[in-house]
């Protein structure tokens, strides 16, 4: 036996079919997912080295800007830790982020919102967590934007996060929201998550202590990935 992963808490995650989020209707499986234990395939995963990162990969204010220019919008620092369900830090985790600009417009060929592009903002960044699972990046706060779901649905300001842990079984994509935003509680995508307690874990907290005077506000956002079981009563101890 290997030290497998405990089952994913499916009642905590949004279910596949959430009719208020219309696109889920034709894209949600109807059969129950088939239960199986994790195997060496699910328990391993790609390893990413810090040398793949460019010096500005975690600075969205500058990584698409012309020389001497910077992105327009409220400047923020986002930081936090990636830990697992057992509370252990996850070092070496690759985090990729993407977001709309301060006006709520994405830099994407299929995007049709009338808000203008910012010539100095691309909206994508990435970083790898340190030994304590910590990460940090700099960006501008994205704007809310309308989307074609209900006749007048608006997304709350949010940043998309894609996270790789050490195992493919930990793979996760989610979204981060901002403390105090009333739009969070009106959004059908957020509302796909069954409980308020679960939603609150996706809301980053404003941090006045880490805020840089006369420069950028700080927000803290911790991420929890699935954690492997580890007990002496399974046949293989980690590292043995």
């Amino acid at each position: 036996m290997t030290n497998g992963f405990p089952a994913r808490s499916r009642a905590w995650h949004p279910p596949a079919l959430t009719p208020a989020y219309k696109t889920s209707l034709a894209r949600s499986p109807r059969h129950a997912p088939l239960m199986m234990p994790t195997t060496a395939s699910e328990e391993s995963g790609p390893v990413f080295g810090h040398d793949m990162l460019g010096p500005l990969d975690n600075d969205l204010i500058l990584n698409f800007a012309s020389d001497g220019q910077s992105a327009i919008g409220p400047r923020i620092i986002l930081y936090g830790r990636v830990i697992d369900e057992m509370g252990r830090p996850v070092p070496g985790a690759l985090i990729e982020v993407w977001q709309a600009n301060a006006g709520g417009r994405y830099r994407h060929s299929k995007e049709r919102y009338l808000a203008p592009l910012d010539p100095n903002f691309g909206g994508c960044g990435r970083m790898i967590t340190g030994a304590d699972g910590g990460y940090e990046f700099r960006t501008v706060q994205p704007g809310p934007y309308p989307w074609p779901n209900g006749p007048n649905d608006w997304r709350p300001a949010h940043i998309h996060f894609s996270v790789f842990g050490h195992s493919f079984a930990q793979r996760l994509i989610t979204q981060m929201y901002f403390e105090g935003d009333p739009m969070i509680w009106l959004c059908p995508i957020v509302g796909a998550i069954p409980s308020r307690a679960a939603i609150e874990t996706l809301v980053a907290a404003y941090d006045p202590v880490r805020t840089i005077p006369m420069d950028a506000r700080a927000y803290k956002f911790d991420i929890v990935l699935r954690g492997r079981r580890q007990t002496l009563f399974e046949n293989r101890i980690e590292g043995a």
Partner: protein
Amino acid sequence: MVQKIDVNRESPSQTAGPYVHIGCTPGVDGLEIYPHDLGSQMIRGDVSGERITIKGAVHDGTGMALRDALVEIWQADSEGRFAKGPDAPFTGFGRSAGDMTTGEFTFQTIKPGRVAFPDGRMQAPHILFWIVARGINLGLQTRMYFADEDNSDDPVLSRIEHASRIPTLLAQPQGDGVYRFDIHLQGPQETIFFDC
């Protein structure tokens, strides 16, 4: 009252949305920020094993191919070993945004070897797939097996009660090392997804 079990809850998933390419494959949509898109090249050196190409698409309940999905794969090398570090000549990790017009994904890789199940039995050669897109609230995990391999003793496939659905996990050889693997989110051909 009893003592408290000290376990964190996993961060809840949210859909990757329509613009997942910006963050994960920016080069596909012409966003020049990184030198190359992650997972675009799985074979980076002298690698043994049978070279194969996997082609397919992700279809919704109406049969239409998704044009905003992101598909990731993870697999062992030809001897059943997983890449250990960032410099491995065979990465085992592939990522495809699919063609922006047709939704067709393509992976250039090698046929994997066999990997053990937790109880020691060997699994038939397989590749893990992970699918995210607008409208998918939690990434979908599935496995691709090979129709031209002996899958009869595979410990995962043998757990499947509805054996008539097993072909949804089998990639069909097309000749010249090309395999076709279509994923159906709904409908009579709905792919088997896993909870593991």
